């Protein structure tokens, strides 16, 4: 089962983990992305997240399906927040539920690595110096390339 939400509202990690539980599940791996105050030594005031409505849901669904084809994963939960967020706010949640831990860990990491490069979201950072769009990180594209070349 795949459940995806793109929303301005906050989410509760505990209740999301609870929603992934069932009798067939022995392992749930989760990732929580949180807005960090310091970025490149500048002090962040806020992040504003925008997305391509329609395409972002499809892109996340495709990534989740790829993970479920690669590993025996029962359920995937993805939540990505949009709008204005401030330091310590939740920004993204990925949960992967499986019978065993390896599929849950690998699936969760795979989904996050592909979310960074293959889902149409953009961040603008507000600092004292003004607001600027964030550039894509080389480490994000190389993380995805690692999966594609078999370096897991």
């Amino acid at each position, binding site marked *: 089962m795949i459940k995806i939400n793109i929303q301005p509202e906050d989410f509760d990690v505990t209740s999301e983990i609870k929603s992934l539980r069932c009798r067939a599940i022995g392992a749930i791996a989760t990732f929580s992305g949180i807005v960090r105050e310091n970025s490149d030594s500048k002090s962040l005031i806020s992040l504003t997240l925008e997305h391509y409505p329609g*395409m972002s849901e499809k892109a996340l669904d495709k990534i989740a399906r790829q993970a479920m084809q690669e590993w025996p994963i029962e359920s995937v939960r993805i939540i990505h927040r949009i709008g204005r967020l401030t330091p310590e706010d939740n920004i993204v949640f990925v949960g992967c539920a499986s019978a065993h831990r390896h599929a849950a860990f690998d699936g969760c990491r795979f989904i996050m690595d592909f979310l*960074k490069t293959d889902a149409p979201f*953009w961040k603008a950072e507000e600092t004292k110096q003004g607001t600027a769009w964030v550039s894509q990180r080389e480490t994000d594209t190389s993380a995805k390339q690692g999966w594609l070349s078999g370096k897991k």
Partner: protein
Amino acid sequence: MRIYYFAWVRDHIGYSQEDIHCPETVKTISQLAAFLSQQSAGHAKAFDDLNAVRAAINQEFVNSDKSVKDTDEIAFFPPVTGG
């Protein structure tokens, strides 16, 4: 065709979508970007460095040599930075 712009591509152009009727010479994403860049100073700035712009056709990422047709939903945006 309907064209959507996101993030700084939209900021340069000044609006988030437009309907364009392209000349028949526009057959690919890169030809469309070249055509659009002549529409205004903002468009020119948005498409100044084509290596910095990504595109989607009908909500799928595509390369710049991909064919476009009048009924397509096109989008131009910077490399993604979610998560």
